[in-house]
């Protein structure tokens, strides 16, 4: 298999602007989505993820404009998630130019919607985001949370990952709540557990702070892609630097 390991910057969008911060808390404004998207593309990003972090009714309509503006200039794939509550929301986002939609809370509450979306639009544009946290309550030791990582669901993350694959998800965006924003490295145990037990690509997210962390996620963690936000926003590393490092360590990347 020769599919390249992907490096995916994540852009949190609030009311039409990209904000940076620790994913779920402490927001700071960072700029125009189109500008950042093209900058990341030129640096060699393989894909982008836009997350509507407020997802109010007003920001929804702004989001469609953002999606359209980004799609007009961007010739790499991008995923849009956050606050997708119906198949119509998903359709509007795809119709405005996104390549994939990422669903989380809606998937947990109405799992059949994964199947519906997958049949209607194809599995390749259905990303199920799983926010998981370490726990003693579930068999695998990881529990699914929804509503921006605020609400524990008493669902085993491993069982849920297998289920979403069965229902037709094309990809899993797996965030470790414990590691998110810490820059202590991805949760390799969680990532490899899910990656080894599903047959769809897994994007590791939460905790990436160094080149070594990204390397670990893609090798020990068996992830197909690594998502990172702050290390790119704060220009600690460029995407090219990450990819050159990975290539030197023998990881197949698009350079």
């Amino acid at each position: 298999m020769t599919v390249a390991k992907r490096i995916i910057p994540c852009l949190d969008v609030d009311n039409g602007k990209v904000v940076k911060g620790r994913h779920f808390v402490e927001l700071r404004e960072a700029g125009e989505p189109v500008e950042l998207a093209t900058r990341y593309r030129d640096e060699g990003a393989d894909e982008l993820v836009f997350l509507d972090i407020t997802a109010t009714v007003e920001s929804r309509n702004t989001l469609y404009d953002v999606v359209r503006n980004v799609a007009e200039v961007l010739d790499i794939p991008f995923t849009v998630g956050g606050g997708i509550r119906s198949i119509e929301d998903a359709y509007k986002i795809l119709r405005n130019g996104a390549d994939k939609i990422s669903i989380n809370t809606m998937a947990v509450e109405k799992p059949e919607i994964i199947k519906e979306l997958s049949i209607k639009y194809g599995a390749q544009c259905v990303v199920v985001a799983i926010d998981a946290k370490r726990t003693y309550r579930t068999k695998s030791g990881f529990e699914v949370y929804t509503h921006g990582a605020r609400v524990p669901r008493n669902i085993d993350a491993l069982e849920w990952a297998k289920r979403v694959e069965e229902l037709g998800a094309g990809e899993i965006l797996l965030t470790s709540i414990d590691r998110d924003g810490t820059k202590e490295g991805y949760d390799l145990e969680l990532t490899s557990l899910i990656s080894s037990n599903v047959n769809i690509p897994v994007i590791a997210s939460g905790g990436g702070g160094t080149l070594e962390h990204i390397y670990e996620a893609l090798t020990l963690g068996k992830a197909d892609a690594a998502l990172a936000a702050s290390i790119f926003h704060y220009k600690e590393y460029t995407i090219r630097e990450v990819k050159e490092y990975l290539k030197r360590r023998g990881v197949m990347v698009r350079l």
Partner: protein
Amino acid sequence: MIFAVIDYGASNMFSLIASLKRANVQVKIVDERERLEKYSAIILPGVGNFTSAVQKISNLKNEILDAVAKGTYIFGICLGMQLLFNESEEGQGEGLSIFRGKVVKFPKTIKVPHMGWNLVEPQGYSLLLSDFERERWAYFAHSYYPNPSNNNIVKGITHYGIKFVSVVEEGNIFGTQFHPEKSGEFGRRIIKNFVEYVRR
């Protein structure tokens, strides 16, 4: 120069249309029956399910086949390339059958969909890949791929567990299993090559 982009409901045409516009092409979205010879080229875009796409284009099938028979250029992308063939393991229905062959699913032993960046290796002379001698990264998102009966139409191959056909080309008919509109610089060049060829 106007290209007809066939709308079969579910597909994400926005970025494809944007990429054609960036190549200075005007676009007409066609979703109901009309004659197609008047367009410089027909584009079959690429996201969705084979069976529902076949159903959606059934009212345009004759118009597409007529135009292609008269020499209108056609370019199928991803599912659009698969629609050029006879049938698919994804579901029932007959494709356009412009090329002979069946669309099949990747073996169960590998991760599907095949999603992400993979290498396209040029095979023989190709208009789409005329600038490229060695392999290039292209963006794929699919679970099925076509097995053409005629090897001469194969202009690019890709490895993903198995070897499969990623570029086909014959006369006025073109197809890529990857998304040129999502393949960065490489994709831009392919779209440019196609547009320039049609313009000549």
